[in-house]
């Protein structure tokens, strides 16, 4: 891990402060996506399994925090290591379950890993494209379930589209009052949030690297390349794939948990298929299997989404105003971002399937077909 980059990341809030810029929020959002992309990278990049429903784990992680660190289950009142005072704003005893965010991170990781296994176990024996469809199915069902979940046989499990609101901040209650920002994780000073997600991202990167170079990492590549040969070498292909699925899910869940606490509200409608595809685009753009490539992919695509497209929109409007063309001055370029991503996916696959920063192995694999094309191509064509 390049030390320089870590150092820069560590002092970023200082730079931000010095510039008087307003970077922290977008940086945190980008970091969440970096985590998601790295999680998906384990599944798609390392193990070669196409997961089109990755957003499901993101959603599950967020709901874990939503359920266990808010007033949602207001029929009970239970707090455990929570950063909140036992009495709420109104002075009454806080209804709902309030468990420390740090503990919930672990819970979210375990919960999503469990779901990864539940989803993966029966489906991982399916061939790759079928697996993609099954994951897509789950990715559609889970958010839909959260939408409908306000009435499961009369019980309000998820609060439907109104979502879960007022999620507790993480907080470090044992700190002295003088370190109030860290004690409370307020909404105004984002430094504690930033360092939290930074640590999470670094852990994710570290785990990615270690896994890639481990016995399991080799098994993933083996299964990806030739499942039968891998099995004949003694690799348990199902568990190997299951691990990829579960570990990918863990990082999706952790990202979701952080997101839930950070935004303090969860809406089931935010976990759409588009998010799955966006994260997939990040992995593919950056280079499947390449950790740094995937990070770059996440930063690039979020940059395009948040800054480039609105900027381009501004330019187009300016041009439209100058030319007095209502078509251009009323254009809504950012609306078509998935058009861009669609083209990106096709172009990447056709021209540079290994991504911007390729993984050495993946490049070889993805260009495999080209060399022996003549062998398979019917001769008279």
């Amino acid at each position, binding site marked *: 891990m390049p030390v320089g980059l870590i150092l820069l990341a560590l002092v970023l809030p200082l730079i931000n402060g010095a510039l008087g810029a307003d970077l922290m929020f977008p940086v945190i959002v980008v970091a969440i996506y970096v985590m998601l992309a790295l999680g998906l990278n384990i599944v798609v990049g390392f193990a070669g399994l196409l997961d089109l429903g990755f957003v499901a784990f993101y959603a599950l992680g967020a709901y874990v925090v939503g359920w266990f660190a808010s007033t949602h289950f207001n029929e009970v009142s239970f707090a455990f290591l929570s950063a909140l005072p036992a009495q709420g704003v109104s002075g009454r005893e806080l209804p709902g379950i309030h468990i420390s965010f740090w503990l919930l991170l672990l819970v979210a990781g375990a919960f999503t890993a469990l779901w990864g296994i539940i989803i993966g176990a029966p489906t991982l024996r399916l061939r790759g494209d079928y697996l993609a469809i099954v994951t897509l199915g789950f990715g559609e069902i889970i958010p839909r379930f959260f939408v409908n979940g306000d009435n499961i046989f009369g019980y309000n499990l998820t609060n439907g589209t109104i979502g879960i609101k007022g999620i507790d901040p993480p907080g470090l209650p044992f700190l002295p009052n003088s370190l109030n920002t860290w004690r409370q994780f307020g909404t105004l000073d984002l430094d504690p949030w930033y360092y939290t997600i930074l640590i999470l991202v670094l852990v994710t990167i570290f785990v990615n690297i270690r896994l890639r170079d481990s*016995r399991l990492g*080799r098994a993933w*590549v083996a299964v990806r390349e030739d499942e039968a040969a*891998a099995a*004949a070498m*003694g690799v348990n292909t199902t568990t190997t794939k299951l691990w990829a699925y579960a570990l990918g899910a863990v990082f999706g869940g952790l990202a979701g948990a952080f997101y839930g606490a950070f935004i303090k509200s969860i809406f089931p409608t935010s976990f759409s298929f588009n998010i799955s595809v966006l994260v997939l685009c990040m992995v593919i753009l950056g280079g499947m299997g390449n950790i740094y490539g995937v990070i770059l992919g996440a930063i690039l695509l979020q940059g395009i989404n948040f800054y480039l497209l609105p900027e381009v929109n501004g330019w187009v409007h300016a041009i439209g105003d100058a030319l007095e063309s209502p078509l251009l001055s009323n254009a809504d370029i950012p609306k078509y971002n998935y058009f861009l991503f669609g083209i990106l996916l096709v172009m990447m696959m056709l021209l540079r399937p290994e991504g911007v920063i390729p993984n050495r*192995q993946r490049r*070889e*694999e993805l260009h495999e077909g080209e060399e022996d094309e003549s062998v398979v191509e019917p001769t008279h064509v």
Partner: protein
Amino acid sequence: MSEARKEEVPNIIFEARSITKVFGGLVAVNAVDFYIPQGGIVSLIGPNGAGKTTFFNMVSGLLRPTAGSFFFLGQDVTRLVPHRRAQMGIGRTFQNIRLFGTMSALDNVLTGMHVRLRGGIVGSILGTPGVRREEKEARERAADLLKFVGLRSRETFAKNLPYGDQRRLEIARALASEPKLLLLDEPTAGMNPQETARLTQLIGRLKEEYGISVLLIEHEMRVVMSISDWVTVLDHGEKISEGAPAQVRVDPKVIEAYLGTAMTG
């Protein structure tokens, strides 16, 4: 005949009892009995389409027989999945080389060691001393294996190796799983005479240096005749002959079967 031999060689490592495989009405392998003695080199020969590779895939677990059972080290392994058989000590190579093309030669061998390594996920992530030591030892062992099969380039992608090296790498990869029984599917296919000779020598050393039993499918009759302890001949899924190489060579049924097709080798 086979009954007689069983008495001669009491130490049976692998046994097939009336193995039958039917593909949608087509009988590919028909009630074949078969066994491999401890430390022996047994060859399976027969003309094209005789069902050798099908039989082979059943032994390694990629296919499951329609009827009959397999015993390995005295245990019924008929219903075991491939990786479980590999764990028990059945290693194999493939007729059409199936290396992990975009892994380095060394990594291919390390993958072969998969079942013999213990490094768990948590250990790998934390980099515990145990896992590190194991990795280091594994690398050394893998390097030794590469040296044993006579491969110099460790870091080259498997797919970029010359053909003969790929064959040898496949054997090294199979050896890495520390098999007690090694299945070699036409290991000399596509090799020139010198390479073939070297490989034959290598197979001989497997038995001597590692005490590994070998089941060999081979078209090259010179190889079969020179190193086999025992030869079984399949034709149209049926066992038509078996015996010592010299015996089989003169069996009229075998000659007929091979005359019916083009005699290879």
